[in-house]
């Protein structure tokens, strides 16, 4: 276990180009998984993290507040055309797609659901892959559908890094399995390993 934690990061980190952002997709079981993944990150963590969680379109979501209370990094809902700040977690607001513009600002859209979901993981991942190219890490966590699989493939096609939660360890394995099917080159890691992995890419302050 220990070795696996260090291996992918240290093998990749020095040789590859720096990472500018992390994108995360999760569905059923997301709150617990995100809390476990994000809470241990130190306040000094420098990378921005953009997150899509499938939620009921109920307009007011308390997910950002809940996570913010548990985390050292700032967690908030994204606003339209917001510049991305380091060390901040941005959640897609309920009922909006979250996209990354070519100038790396965030934008929102209420266009049709994708895979019955708005926000959709694919929409975030595909636009982030366009904006960040190889300087991006995509993470697929627990979930009961196949949103995110295509987006994860777009990330690796652009030269970015793909990580999928080990399916057996996920609350619901459908989303990780769907992602691995389209994107077999993804690293599979436990949440604990992911937290360590991500920290290796955080630039020094």
């Amino acid at each position, binding site marked *: 276990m220990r070795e696996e934690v260090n291996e992918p990061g240290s093998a990749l980190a020095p040789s590859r180009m720096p990472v500018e952002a992390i994108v995360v997709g999760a569905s059923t079981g997301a709150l617990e998984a995100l809390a476990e993944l994000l809470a241990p990150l130190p306040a000094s963590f420098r990378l921005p993290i953009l997150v899509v969680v499938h939620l009921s379109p109920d307009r007011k979501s308390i997910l950002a507040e809940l996570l913010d209370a548990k985390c050292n990094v700032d967690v908030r809902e994204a606003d339209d055309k*917001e510049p991305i700040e380091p060390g901040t977690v941005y959640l897609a607001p309920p009922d909006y797609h979250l996209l990354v513009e070519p100038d790396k600002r965030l934008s929102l859209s209420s266009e049709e659901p994708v895979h019955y979901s708005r926000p959709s993981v694919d929409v975030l991942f595909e636009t982030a892959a366009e904006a960040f190219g190889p300087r991006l890490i995509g993470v697929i966590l627990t979930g009961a559908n196949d949103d995110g699989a295509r987006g994860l493939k777009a990330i690796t096609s652009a030269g970015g890094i793909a990580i999928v939660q080990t399916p057996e360890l996920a609350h619901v394995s459908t989303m990780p399995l769907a992602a691995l099917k389209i994107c077999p080159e993804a690293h599979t890691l436990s949440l604990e390993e992911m937290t360590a992995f991500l920290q290796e890419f955080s630039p020094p302050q």
Partner: protein
Amino acid sequence: MAKTTETLELSLLLEAIRGQYHYDFRGYSLASIKRRLGLARERFGCQTYSQLQDRVLHDATVFPELLGFLTVQVSELFRDPEYFRMIRELVVPHLKTYPSLKVWVAGCGAGEEVYSLAILFREEGLEERTLIYGTDINGEALKKAEAGIYDLDRIPLFTENHRKSGGKSSLSDYYTAAYGAAVFDKSLRKRTVFSDHSLVSDAVFAEVHLVSCRNVLIYFDRELQDRAIGLFKDSLSRKGFLGLGAKESLRFSRHADAFSDFSAGMRIYQKQGLA
């Protein structure tokens, strides 16, 4: 294909649309426009944006449908009920002090936001003194707005939204159900004008007391957002109100100083005195 080729094709396509049909999408949020044109490309069976451009230029039936892809039409009556509750509770008391009122719903789509405000203003006793302008660039949507007919299966959500907005009557008072459709009462349109107006290229057309422009600015880049917000600023009377979508704000606008937060949580702003 090389990304730069595709980017070039995309800007040529937008240029072609502007040249031939006078709709300018060049200042729209690129990430979203790309996605939407990608869907359109599939729909028209084109491999590339260049092929789509060829179709758009030489087949006059293509553009109206393409416009449907380029303009997002998702809406609801009393969408975000809390917004309408704030209009009702905080803005209406101010509006009541004016003998006559004008309201501009910019980017009104198929009219949902206009009917919501028309119902709200009737409930609050302001209807007789108010004129509502609903504007959009999508002609099909404006026709639907004019007709005031919505699928009956959307009504439960509309009813729930209306109730949550603090509605003082029953939504069923305002429509009749027939053949799977809800037909909204013509009298709601008596003091409403729907017209074609673009926030990209057209000018201010009236002095108004309230601008409601929700979920339109998110499709614009910042420069275009600033143009639209500038129009709202020039159109609003002193101390007039500007309501935006739940995730839109003046935070990044160069006109921010001309407004003060009125209900920050709900993105309702008030135009400042002189300046």
